[in-house]
């Protein structure tokens, strides 16, 4: 409306200007006629008076028009200022009514990105922000629905693995059990039959290992992999694992060295699970290293934790493989896996187990020189005060 005033002002200014020019032109015309009469010598006094009158008239017209222009300009200016102020006021109102919903959108997006699938905005404000809000809410609802479906699928997958592993166990028990039964009468078998039986048993054990690993992973995925941490001495645990591996490493003429620092504080771990992790690391070292390689298991205190490492001087792991080594079904060089009996799940499970204890696991390797796997485990002393507070 105020802007309208400015438009009217500009219109009036143009009209005044037109009137001024018309009047000025008419005045010049009258002066010229008077000058012609003067030149002809007809009524010279009257002609001179007419010329002066027209000159005065034009002077007055000029004074008038500048006054009018100033007024109109003032009017136009006032109109414009008023209009701009109004527009600004209107705009700040507009911005204010947009800002709330937009701030809410930004905040809800942040929550959604952070994993809060319940994040929604209140739909309101201008039509545009309301539409944006509705679109956001629809998107969030869709994300939530898909996440729900995905969770459901994950649960079904985990249940399937648990059931399958359970169902496979009975026939496997029979196969392994009867093969072992036959093995008890090995002296009655021909060497070839005994070898065949040996292969059946090896593969049965491999299947069992695979089933156990798959079950562990399914449990880990479902957050049902549980540990029962108790005070555990490092040295006997390492000694036990080394003892278990000794037969296999000696058969391959590998040197297995145990190097546990004295006076280590007791660990706060589930001994069965850490034994499983250490056995996995040692089995890997044994299986991936050639004959006569040396494998060293060390344990030392680092700060409030104990680090247990398994170092070998085997073929090492190329950098490209090293970064994926803790992922499931990742195994070393395919040429080697021909004779390596792993499932490709051991390190993934070891990682889950160590992390469940609040520890870390890592690997470093120089191809051609060997690999070192390190795990850090919490000590009893480091955990207990934390629990007490």
């Amino acid at each position, binding site marked *: 409306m105020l802007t309208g005033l400015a438009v009217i002002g500009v219109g009036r200014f143009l009209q005044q200007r037109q009137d001024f020019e018309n009047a000025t032109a008419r005045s010049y015309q009258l002066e010229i006629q008077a000058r012609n009469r003067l030149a002809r010598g007809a009524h010279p006094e009257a002609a001179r008076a007419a010329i002066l009158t027209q000159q005065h008239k034009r002077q007055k017209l000029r004074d008038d028009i500048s006054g009018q222009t100033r007024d109109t300009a003032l009017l136009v200016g006032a109109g414009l200022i008023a209009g701009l102020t109004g527009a600004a006021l209107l705009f700040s109102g507009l911005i204010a009514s947009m800002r709330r919903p937009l701030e809410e959108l930004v905040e809800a997006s942040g929550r959604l990105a952070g994993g809060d699938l319940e994040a929604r905005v209140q739909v309101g404000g201008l039509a545009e922000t309301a539409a944006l809000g509705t679109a956001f809410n629809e998107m969030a609802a869709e994300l939530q629905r898909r996440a729900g479906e995905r969770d459901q699928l994950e649960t079904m997958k985990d249940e399937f693995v648990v059931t399958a592993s359970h169902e496979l166990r009975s026939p496997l*028990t*029979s196969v392994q*059990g*009867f093969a072992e039964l036959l093995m008890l009468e090995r002296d009655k078998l021909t060497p070839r039959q005994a070898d065949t039986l040996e292969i059946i048993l090896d593969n049965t054990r491999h299947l069992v290992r695979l089933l156990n690993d798959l079950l562990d992973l399914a449990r880990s995925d479902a957050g049902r992999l549980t540990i029962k941490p108790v005070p555990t001495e490092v040295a006997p645990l390492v000694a036990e694992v080394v003892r278990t591996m000794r037969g296999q490493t000696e058969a391959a003429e590998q040197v297995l060295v145990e190097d546990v620092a004295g006076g280590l504080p007791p660990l706060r771990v589930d001994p069965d699970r850490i034994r499983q992790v250490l056995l996995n690391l040692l089995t890997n070292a044994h299986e991936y290293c050639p004959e006569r390689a040396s494998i060293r298991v060390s344990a030392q205190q680092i700060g409030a934790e104990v680090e247990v490492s398994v170092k070998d001087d085997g073929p090492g792991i190329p950098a490209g493989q090293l970064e994926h080594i803790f992922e499931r079904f990742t195994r070393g060089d395919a040429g080697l896996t021909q004779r390596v009996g792993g499932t490709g799940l051991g390190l993934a499970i070891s990682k889950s187990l160590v992390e469940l204890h609040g520890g870390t696991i890592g690997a470093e390797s120089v191809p051609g020189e060997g690999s070192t796997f390190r795990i850090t485990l919490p000590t009893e002393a480091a955990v207990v005060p934390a629990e007490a507070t």
Partner: protein
Amino acid sequence: MAKVLVADDSETILLLLQTRLEMEGYEVETANDGQEVMDAMHAAAEGATPDLLLLDAMMPRKSGIEALRELRAEGVETPALIVSAHQDAGDADSATELEVSGYVTKPIDFDQLFSSIKQLTS
């Protein structure tokens, strides 16, 4: 020699357990489910009851766990080992409540099983 009552719904596993136990010198009685375990326990004459129960945790009709619960309610104190396909069937609550002497995981580690049985029946 000690007498073991073995229950499993799989005929082959029952045959495996029976063969291995008999080779170790045990007297073996078999049952196909928990109900047969109950029947066998009720039918056994005084002094001829089994020295050990080796029960599969999951069986149709009546599971090993259910049978053991009923037997304990009847005051039967025979030591029992529970065989399970689960890796960690060792549920602490039922172990205490049902006085389970141990859990055996499939596939069965017979060396370990025999050492447990030896301990429980001596």
